[in-house]
C-alpha cells in the first residue's frame, strides 16, 4: 500500500498526483468517492490529475478523451485503451493506494523507468 495523503487534505472535486513509477492519480469526486488510476493518459503524455473531473469521469486535459474512474474505460478518441485502475483504502483518515498488478497502458514513447 502506498500512502497518498490525509483524507482532509484532498477536498472533493480535487485530484492528487503520486510520484510513483508510473505516476498514479487519486481523485475525490463531488459525491465523496475516492478513485485511483494511472496518471498518464493512454494516448499521449498528459497528467490526468490535471484533467477535468466530472462525476465519476475525468477528461484528459489535452485532447478530451474521458476515462471512467471506476472501470478505466475511455469514451472516445483520441485515446483507445483503458487506463489502469487501482484500489483505494482509507485507514485512520489517511488515503492509501493498493497498486494494481496488471500491466499499465502507457502511451507510445512513455516507459516505466528501468524498463525498455
Amino acid at each position: 500500500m502506498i500512502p497518498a495523503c490525509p483524507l482532509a487534505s484532498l477536498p472533493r472535486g480535487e485530484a492528487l498526483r503520486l510520484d510513483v513509477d508510473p505516476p498514479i492519480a487519486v481523485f475525490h469526486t463531488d459525491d465523496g468517492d475516492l478513485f485511483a488510476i494511472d496518471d498518464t493518459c493512454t494516448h499521449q503524455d498528459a497528467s490526468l490529475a490535471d484533467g477535468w473531473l466530472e462525476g465519476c469521469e475525468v477528461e484528459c486535459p489535452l485532447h478530451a478523451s474521458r476515462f471512467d474512474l471506476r472501470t478505466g474505460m475511455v469514451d472516445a478518441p483520441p485515446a483507445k485503451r483503458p487506463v489502469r485502475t487501482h484500489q483505494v483504502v482509507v485507514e485512520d483518515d489517511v488515503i492509501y493506494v493498493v497498486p494494481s498488478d496488471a500491466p499499465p497502458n502507457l502511451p507510445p514513447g512513455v516507459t516505466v523507468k528501468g524498463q525498455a
Partner: protein
Amino acid sequence: MNTVCVVGASLAGLLTARALRDQGYEGRLVVIGEERHRPYDRPPLSKDFLKGVIGEADLALEDDGEDPRIEWRLGVAATGLDAVSRRITLSDGTSLVVDGIVIATGAAARTLPRTEGLRGVHTLRTLDDAHALRAELESAGRLVVIGGGFIGAEVAATARELGLGVTLVESGPAPLAGVVGLTMAQAIAALHEQRGVRLIAGARVTEVTATERAGSLRADGVRLEDGTHLPADVVVVGIGAVPNTAWLRGSGVELGDGVLCDEGGGTSVPGIVAVGDCAAWWDPAQGRHHRIEHWTGARQRAAVAAATLLSGGTARPAPPRPAYIWSDQFDMKIQFIGRADEADTVTVEEGDPADGRFLAVYRQADRPVAVLGVNQVRLFTRWRRQLETMPVQAG
C-alpha cells in the same frame, strides 16, 4: 431508415457512424473512404508521426475489439450525388442507393499555383502526405515552410527538432495571428525564433524556384516579392484547406464555403446531414454559417449530426460550445479556447511569455472570451471549464 451511407472515413465519419449505432440505428451502415486507410488520427501527422516518435499503428482511431457493424468501402471516392433518388455514384463506376446520408468528406490542403508536379514541394493532410514528407526530411538540410497556420508552425518545429535549417514565411504579421491575435502570436513567434526557426512575416511568395534533375523539376528555393531567394531542399505549403464538396455540385445540396447546414447539421435536403471540416453549420451566436476545421469540432458534432439524421431534424441540439484547439510545437503545449477577435484586451495572468510558460486571458469588457495556455495545462483546464460552462451570448 434501412441504409445509411457515411461518405468520408476520417474522424467525423467514424464518430458519426459510431453515434448512429449508439443512438439505436440498427440498419445497414456503409462508410465510404477515398483513402485506402482505415480511419486514422491526423493531428500527429505534423508532430510525433513526422518526427518518427510514433508509427502508423498508433494513429488508428478504431478500438481493437470494436464492431459497429460497418460495411467499409475504402479506396473509392464519391463522385456524385442525386439528392432526389439518394443515389451516390462512386469512382469505381458503381453506385449506391441509400435512405440517409452523412456527408463527412473533409477538406483538402490548398496548393500553391504553378507547383503541380514539382518534386520537393509538399502539403500535409493525409497519411500518405506525411510518409512522403518524412522520407524527404530525413535527407534534407533546409526546409522552407510557406504559411504560418497550425500545420506550418508545427511542421517548422518538428523539422527544426529533426535538425533541419527552417525558414517559415508568413504573409500576415505573425504566425497563428488569425487564431490567437497579434500580441500573443508575436510571443509564440519569439519562442520559435529562440528555438532556431527563421521567421519572415509580412512576406508574399512569388514563386517556388526549381532546377532540372534527372529529367524532372525539383524545387530548390522560394522567391519572395521583394526579390529575396530562400534556398530550400524541401518546401512545405501550409496555406489552408478547401472543403471537399466538388462531388456535390448540382446535387441539390446547398453549398457555400462548405455544405450549408442548420445548427444540428441538417443540410438543405431532408435525410442528408453533414459534419466535420466540409460542413458549414449555422452558428446562432454569430448569425452566420461557418466551418470549424478543428478536431474537437468534428468530435463534438458527430453525435448531434447522428441525432439530426435519425430524428428527421426534430432533435434540438444544445447551443455550440466555444472551439478548443491544441497544438504541440517544440516543447510547447499550446492550448486555446474561444475567439480572440472578440476581445478588447489580452492580459498575461500567469507565467511569462519569454519563458515559454504562460496563460493569457482575452476579455471583452470584463467578460472572458478566450484563453491561451502555453505549458499551463492544469490552469488552462480550469479556464476552459469556465468558458465552456458560461452562458452563450448572442453576438
